[in-house]
C-alpha cells in the first residue's frame, strides 16, 4: 500500500462516524445507511486520486457520500413518498453539522460523558434500544407501558443528549 493510499485509508477510517451520521441524516435513519456507507468507502478508495490532499477530507468525503445516497435511491425501487428528494438532500447536506477535520470522533467522547449523566431509567431505555438493539414494542412490553410512551421517552433522551453535547462543546471552546 503506497503512502497516499495509506493516508487516505487512515482519514477514511477516522471519518467513519461522521460519514455514517451524515448518511443517516440523508436517509432519514434507514437501516440501509450502513450499506450506503459501505458503498461510500469503496467509492472513496477507488476514486482517491481525485482527492486534493491539501484540502479538508471530510467535506470531500461527504460529497462522495451524497452521490452514493442519490445513486442508491435511483438504483432501487423505493416508495418515492418515503424518500427525500434531491433538493431536500442537498439542503440537509448543507445544514448537517460537520465535525472538525482533525478530530472527527470527539462527539463520541462527549456522548460517553453525557451518557454518564443520564438518570438510571433513561440510561436503561437507551441501553435496551441501542446497545442491545431491542425493538420499541419489546421494550414497551418489558417496561409495562405503551409503545408511544417508550418512543417519546427515547426522543426526550436523544434531545437531552444533544443538549448536553452542545453544552460540552461550548464549554470546551471557552476553556481552550
Amino acid at each position, binding site marked *: 500500500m503506497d503512502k497516499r493510499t495509506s493516508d487516505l485509508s487512515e482519514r477514511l*477510517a*477516522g471519518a467513519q462516524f461522521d460519514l*455514517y451520521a451524515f448518511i443517516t441524516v440523508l436517509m432519514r435513519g434507514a437501516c440501509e445507511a450502513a450499506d450506503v456507507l*459501505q458503498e461510500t468507502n469503496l467509492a472513496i*478508495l477507488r476514486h482517491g486520486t481525485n482527492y486534493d490532499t491539501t484540502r479538508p477530507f471530510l467535506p470531500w468525503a461527504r460529497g462522495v457520500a451524497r452521490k452514493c445516497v442519490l445513486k442508491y435511491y435511483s438504483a432501487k425501487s423505493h416508495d418515492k413518498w418515503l424518500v427525500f428528494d434531491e433538493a431536500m438532500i442537498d439542503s440537509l447536506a448543507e445544514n448537517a453539522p460537520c465535525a472538525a477535520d482533525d478530530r472527527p470522533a470527539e462527539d463520541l*467522547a462527549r456522548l*460517553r460523558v453525557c451518557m454518564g449523566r443520564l438518570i438510571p431509567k433513561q*440510561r436503561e431505555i437507551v441501553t435496551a434500544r441501542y446497545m442491545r438493539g431491542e425493538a420499541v414494542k419489546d421494550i414497551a412490553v418489558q417496561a409495562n407501558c405503551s409503545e408511544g410512551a417508550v418512543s417519546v421517552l427515547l426522543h426526550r433522551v436523544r434531545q437531552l443528549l444533544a443538549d448536553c453535547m452542545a453544552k460540552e462543546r461550548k464549554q470546551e471552546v471557552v476553556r481552550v
Partner: protein
Amino acid sequence: MDGKLIVFDDLVRCVIDGDATAEEFQDLVAMMRDAPGLQKRYCRQMQIHALLTCHKGQEWPDENDVRQSEAFRSFARRTGPDAGQTPDAGGKETRGVAWRWAAAAAILLGGVAAWCCGGGASLRAAIEAKRLGTSGPAVPVARLMWQKNVKGLDLPGTLPGTLRLESGVVGVRLQTGVELSVIGPAEVEVQSGMRIHLERGRLLADVPHWATGFTVRTKQFEVYDLGTVFGVSVESTVSDVFVFKGSVQVNERKCEWGKESFEEGVGLCEAGEGVRALTGESPVKFAADWPAAKELFSTVSGPSAARNPAFAMKIATQIETLWSDRNMPQRNCVAGEPRSASAVPSRKAAWVRSAKAVSPRKRRGCSLMDVLSGAAPGTSSGPVQVDSSPCGDNRRWSTVFTNEVPLRWDWPLSATTAELEIVGMNSVLVTNFTPGTSFYLWRPFAGRVPSEEDIYTLCLTFYKGEMAVAGELTSRLAVLTGAFGKTVVDLRPTGQPAVFTKRSMVIPYDACWDASTANASGCMLAVTTSRKSTQVNRFAETSGYYGYRLNDFGCGTFEWGLTFPGTEGKWDAKMSWSLGGMIMSVR
C-alpha cells in the same frame, strides 16, 4: 415549545422509530422545506440516533469510566495542539503530549478507526490513565462472548497478546467492537483492537462499520476491512480469505531484505469473493459466480455467516474447491511447479478470474482433432442403445431411478437441528432442518433424464445445540443415464478409443463381471499418470461406482487398472485428456 415544534418532533420521532406513514413523512418534508432551523433540529436528532446506533453492542462507561474520560478530555484540552506548553500531571513540560499519545495509539491501531465510538474513547482513557498512573477502565483486550465445546482456551490479557484455542468455537469481542468467531485449533496474535495476526486456524470477523480499517494478517497476505463479515483460514503454507458481506482489500505480503511490507497485489474482494494464497506463489482470487456456487453462497451470505461461523467457513472452502476445479485444471497439470507470478494481475479495482469454461465448440473441435489423430475415419459403428443399469448387484449403492428422491429419517432424542449436505461431482446442496421435519424431497436434476451422470454423497448431521453432533446418517447415490431406460454407447472396433467431451463420468465396477473374481472381498482401482505416479483407490465393496472428474487428475495420459485383490485378472484402460476432450480405451 410551540405547537409546531411539538408536531415536528413527533414526526421526527416516528421517522426514527420507522413508524412514519407516507403522509407523516410528507408532512415532515413540507415542514422542513425552506426552514433551515427545523432541518438543523432534524439533523441533530438524527445524528444522536446515528451516534447511539454506532455504539450498538458496546458497553456504556460506568461512573469511573466517565470520570476517566472527563479527566482525559480536560487534560487533552490543557495539552492539546493549541494549548501551548502546559505542565502535565507529573510536572514535566511537554507540548501536545496527549495528542502524541493518541497519534501513537492511532499508529498502533493501524488506522484511526478505533477513535470512532467507544473503543477509541476507552483506549484513549486507558492510555491516559496509564500516563497518569491510575488504573484505567476495565475494558478487556478480548471479551469472551460465547463458547461451544471449548478446550484449551487462552485469552490475551494485554496488548499485544495471544489467543489460543485447542478445539471448539469461541466468540470474542475486541475493544473496538470487532467480533471474532475463532474455530479451534487456532492461534491468534491480537496486536491491537484494530489488528490481529492469524498464525493458524480459522476465524470469522464481524466488523462494525465504525471499525473500518480492521486488519487481519497471515503469512501470505493482509486483509484490510472495509466494514464487513469475512472469514480467514491458515493451514501451514496456505491462507484463504472469503467475504460473506461487504468488502475487503487484500494485499499480498512481501518480504524483501528481511523487511516486511504489504503491497497492493490482489485488489478488492466483495461478497462472494475470496483469495487463496500459497507461500511462494501469487494469490489467486476466486468467486462464487456460477449458479451452483451462488446457491451455495446464498446459504451463508450476509450477516447470517456470523451466526454459524463453522458452517460458513465450511461453505467458503467448498466454494474455493469447486472454483479451482472449474477454472484451474492447470493447477493439477503443473502440480509441484510454482505458478507464474503474473498469473494474477495487480489491480486496484475488484477483479475476478474469468470463470468461463472452455466453450463446447472449442472442446468439440479439439476432440475431433483427437479422433482424427487416433482413429481412421469410417471405422466406427453407429451408436446402439443398451440398458446398463447394474442395480441387481449393488447392495451398498443405490441408483436413482427418478428425478425425485424421497429422504426420510428419525430424529435422535437430543437433536435440535439437522444439516443435510449432498455433495455431487458438479454441485453441492446444503440445507437445514428443525425437529418436526422428517422428510425432504430431493431433486437431483431437472427434467426426466439426467444430462450428466453423477455420484452423490448424502450426509445428514444432527446437532445438539448449535455445534455438538448428536448423530449422523450417510448414504451414497449414483445417477446413471442408463438407469432411466436406455443409454447411448458409441461402440468402436477393438483398439479404437472412445471419445468423451464431458467433464465427469461415473465408472462402474463389479466383481461379478467375471466368474474368477466373483468371490473377491474388495476392489482396487489404480490410476497411473504419465509421470508414473500412482494413486490407489481401495473400496470395501465389490460392486459400485467411482465418480471421476477430469479435474481430479488434470491433463495428460492415464492408465487405469481395476483389480479385485485375492483373485486373478485385471481390467485396464488407457485415457488421454487434453483441455478439449478425453479419449479412452478399455480392455
